[in-house]
């Protein structure tokens, strides 16, 4: 029996893998020590668990265990990486390069940097959501200290050419940081081969618990340092003070281990399911995939269904938990800035749904989702004046709309 609603919003967060919970349980109960307590076995047990988790994480992204700085999640890691580099390297320069389709944790941090007197370049993306390497090259200056470009996009799944970007940053003496939130644990991310100097990621996007994440900070070639953004006990090599969230860290470690072991199988299964979902939904007229289909995370698809409105569509697909590119909850009715950056018109951005599959998604759920979305889109189009005009061959762009 299929349980409704079906959760297909795994880019927002994933459920906890029961095996992760099992690994965490002792650290929520009997092994409660503070990992910084050096004087007794309670502390040693906690520290040992944290060190083990560091090894599990390091094995996933091919780094040294000492290069992992634990944080509360990717937002904090993005803040620490960007603000920390800006402060630490202020002697060298004050210019940061990022892209318009980054997550708010990066964009708003960059806005903050601008208020502090920094200069930020926001690179545009093409219709596939990819930045241009020529644009990046042209934006580099002697004052550029950091290039920060996300690995895989949260709305479209578009994967940026990370290695090429890193090479350009390094050629000009800048550091390269990436927000790996959606990519780590989903696709192979190798900080050495990719040339990544700093990387933000989080547990709850890869079947781990909420409230714990990490910032990878390279220790050699070059040795990267970030100025702490929180003062306190000097934990995490002085870069992030605060008592370590031991159960959370154990969960992140276990999630990384499972990801490493099961990534190939998960990717094969999820991409096949995603492709089937996409193929079926594209049989609806006037439906379009947003972002690159070639360079894309395996478990994500973002589709616009022209002439139906996103929020109305969300209501029509009430048996599915998905996200819409429409944010019709405020008076401004701002559609997704990521989709707009791809060049989508506002109405097409409003008409989009994002599907994010997970390790726990089943074929049966996908079958249900396909029929449910097809029915909802068809019903709403029968109700849509825009669909009727389109069918009559009226050019909607020629109509003088009374904007309100």
């Amino acid at each position, binding site marked *: 029996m299929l349980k409704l609603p079906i959760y297909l919003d795994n880019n927002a967060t994933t459920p906890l893998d029961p095996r992760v919970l099992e690994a965490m349980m002792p650290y929520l109960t009997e092994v409660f020590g503070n990992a910084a307590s050096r004087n007794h076995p309670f502390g040693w047990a906690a520290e040992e668990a944290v060190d083990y988790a560091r090894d599990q994480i390091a094995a996933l992204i091919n780094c040294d265990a000492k290069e992992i700085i634990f944080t509360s999640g990717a937002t904090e890691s993005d803040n620490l990486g960007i603000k920390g580099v800006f402060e630490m390297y202020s002697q060298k320069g004050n210019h940061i390069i990022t892209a318009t389709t980054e997550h708010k944790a990066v964009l708003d941090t960059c806005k903050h940097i601008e208020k502090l007197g920094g200069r930020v370049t926001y690179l545009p993306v093409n219709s596939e959501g990819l930045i241009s390497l020529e644009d990046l090259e042209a934006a580099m200056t002697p004052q550029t200290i950091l290039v920060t470009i996300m690995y895989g996009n949260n709305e479209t799944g578009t994967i940026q050419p990370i290695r090429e970007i890193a090479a350009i940053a390094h050629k000009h003496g800048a550091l390269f940081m990436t927000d790996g939130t959606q990519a780590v644990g989903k696709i192979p991310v190798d900080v050495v081969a990719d040339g990544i100097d700093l990387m933000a990621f989080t547990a709850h996007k890869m079947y781990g618990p909420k409230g714990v994440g990490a910032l990878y900070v390279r220790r050699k070639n070059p040795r990267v340092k970030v100025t702490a953004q929180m003062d306190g006990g000097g934990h995490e090599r002085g870069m992030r003070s605060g008592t370590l969230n031991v159960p959370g860290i154990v969960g992140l470690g276990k999630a990384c281990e499972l990801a490493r072991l099961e990534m190939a199988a998960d990717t094969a299964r999820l991409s096949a399911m995603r492709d089937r979902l996409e193929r079926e939904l594209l049989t609806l007229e006037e439906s379009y995939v947003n972002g690159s289909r070639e360079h894309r995370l395996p478990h994500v698809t973002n589709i616009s269904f022209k*002439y*139906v*409105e*996103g*929020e*109305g569509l969300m*209501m*029509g697909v009430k048996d599915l938990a998905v996200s819409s590119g*429409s944010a*019709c*909850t*405020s*008076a401004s*009715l701002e*559609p997704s800035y990521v989709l707009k950056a791809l060049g989508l*018109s*506002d*109405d097409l951005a*409003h008409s989009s749904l994002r599907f994010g599959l997970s390790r726990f998604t089943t074929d049966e759920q996908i079958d249900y989702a396909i029929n449910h979305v097809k029915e909802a889109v068809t019903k709403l189009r*029968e*109700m*849509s*004046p*825009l*669909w*009727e005009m389109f069918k009559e061959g009226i050019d*909607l762009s020629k109509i003088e*709309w*009374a*904007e*309100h």
Partner: protein
Amino acid sequence: MAYSDKVIDHYSNPRNVGSLDKSKKNVGTGLVGAPECGDVMRLQIEVDETTNTITDAKFKTFGCGSAIASSSLATEWLKGKTVDEALAIDNMEIVEELALPPVKIHCSVLAEDAIKSAINDYRVKNGLPALEEAKSHH
């Protein structure tokens, strides 16, 4: 956001979806909103010219559940009303009936605009002066 039961009912079972023959002299059509704002409503009325009564009303809406519900409710209310009674429908009555939250009040405004716009179209078609306030909300 949680929708009220009435919004869900109108969304799931919309009343009077469809089109009237806009070439007919006694049919008024209102098309309001804009695709890039996420709401477009088309509301049509058919008027019995002898009694000045609205005998039929149809809508099609591109928009969120509250926009669909507002226009569906409007068509229900319009049927049987005289044109003058229809003109008196205030968006706040729609807000109350559907229990729309503040962020969705614009949906009711749009429905009121659609009613006025349809009536205006009917008036102009029939040689009556255009309504002063037909576009006042924009």
